């Protein structure tokens, strides 16, 4: 299967890429890893007239912590995140998710930012980015634009990214003292979408939860922010089993799964309840330094 014909542009600077995107007048697409875009082009679900390949632009593969933020450049592959010691140690939710994005071969090509810009409603990274409060830095003809990961995705394959903007970097606030996070995903097989997945982040003072954030993947039209579930935890102890159970119940309540090959609605809803509880326990243990 071949994609439709297109013009291939390989800029060596972001400025050139922005110009090429503007010249494409809505018919150009940015390619980083291409692991979602190319399959769509082969199936003719997408037939852009121009492909602008970011791979020749130096400096987009930044993966580092600087000025209190983790910077993930547009060419940072899923496998870079999976193998990064910094990420495993300080951002365990990212490490957890990286191990379950697609399969190991796709992870060597596909990128974190590309996945967000692609806007697959069932994407794991949208949940992770929102749960960690990521800033998404883009550039366009009028300069830099910052989007919030929380409301970045607007509908299926639609995001706030303008047609003339390129997502160049995600910035994630560095963890506070006693912060823990986790991502738990149930999938039928490697490379499948989640039957359900839950991302959580908690900040503790001793054992008391002072901040919490919970995101749900593929149990609704888009990533769901389980705000009530997260709010219910504030002031509670991470060791309070009833509080975690209640958060799980509230998360399940706000989920909107549909029955499909991955299971009936009731099953998925209960998965959300159980995964939320478990993810909170794991994140809590990590916040207390009990688990690497």
């Amino acid at each position: 299967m071949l994609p439709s014909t297109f013009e291939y542009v390989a800029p060596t600077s972001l400025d050139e890429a922005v110009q090429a995107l503007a010249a494409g007048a809505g018919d150009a697409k940015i390619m980083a890893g291409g692991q979602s875009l190319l399959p769509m082009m082969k199936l003719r679900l997408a037939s852009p007239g121009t492909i602008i390949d970011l791979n020749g632009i130096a400096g987009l593969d930044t993966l580092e912590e600087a000025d209190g933020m983790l910077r993930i450049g547009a060419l940072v592959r899923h496998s870079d995140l999976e193998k990064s010691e910094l990420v495993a140690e300080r951002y365990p939710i990212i490490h957890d998710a990286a191990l379950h994005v697609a399969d190991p071969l796709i992870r060597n090509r596909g990128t974190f930012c590309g996945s967000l810009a692609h806007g697959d409603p069932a994407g794991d990274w949208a949940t992770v980015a929102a749960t960690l409060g990521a800033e998404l830095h883009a550039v366009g003809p009028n300069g830099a634009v910052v989007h919030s990961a929380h409301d970045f995705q607007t509908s299926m394959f639609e995001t706030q990214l303008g047609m003339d903007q390129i997502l160049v970097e995600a910035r994630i606030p560095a963890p506070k003292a006693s912060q823990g996070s986790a991502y738990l995903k149930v999938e039928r097989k490697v490379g499948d979408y989640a039957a359900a997945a839950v991302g959580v982040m908690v900040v503790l003072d001793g054992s008391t939860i002072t901040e919490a954030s919970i995101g749900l993947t593929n149990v609704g039209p888009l990533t769901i922010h389980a705000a009530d579930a997260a709010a219910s935890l504030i002031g509670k102890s991470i060791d309070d089993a009833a509080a975690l159970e209640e958060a799980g119940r509230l998360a399940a309540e706000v989920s909107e799964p549909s029955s499909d090959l991955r299971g009936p609605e009731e099953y998925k809803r209960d998965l959300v309840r159980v995964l939320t509880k478990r993810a909170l326990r794991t994140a809590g243990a990590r916040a207390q330094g009990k688990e690497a």
Partner: protein
Amino acid sequence: MSDKVVVTTTVNGEECEAMVEPRTLLVHMIRESLHLTGTHIGCDTTSCGACTVLLDGKPVKSCTVLAVQANGREVLTVEGLEAADGLSPVQEGFKEEHGLHCGYCTPGMMMTVTALLEENPHPSEDEIRKAISGNLCRCTGYVNIIKAVHYAARKREGAAA
């Protein structure tokens, strides 16, 4: 119709040049322009891993990389595994442990495993299973494939000693 472009790639250690359309996939350039047909096309939908090659040392699905994206880069295909002194440890392992039934997934499997052993010379069974989780064997011959990887790991260690 887009004009053809020249792609210069180092394939199995040799510099190769091909004229391809921008939409040409790497696997097609390898098979049809360079006539290296050891790399198989399986699902063509980024699912099966039969077309796995190493791009700058990393295993990728060559049906989901544009040929132009390999310009100036190094590609290793199954034809490049054999050394002057015979089969590579991975190839020998697949032969000795019968790590194949029909053989269709074998080139891709061997490329993924070659990269795994470079990164992790002594993988556990669990690590092997995870590493090959993007390569499907529809004969389901995974048990012998895992044995083949262990064989190759031992063989490499012996060769290094």
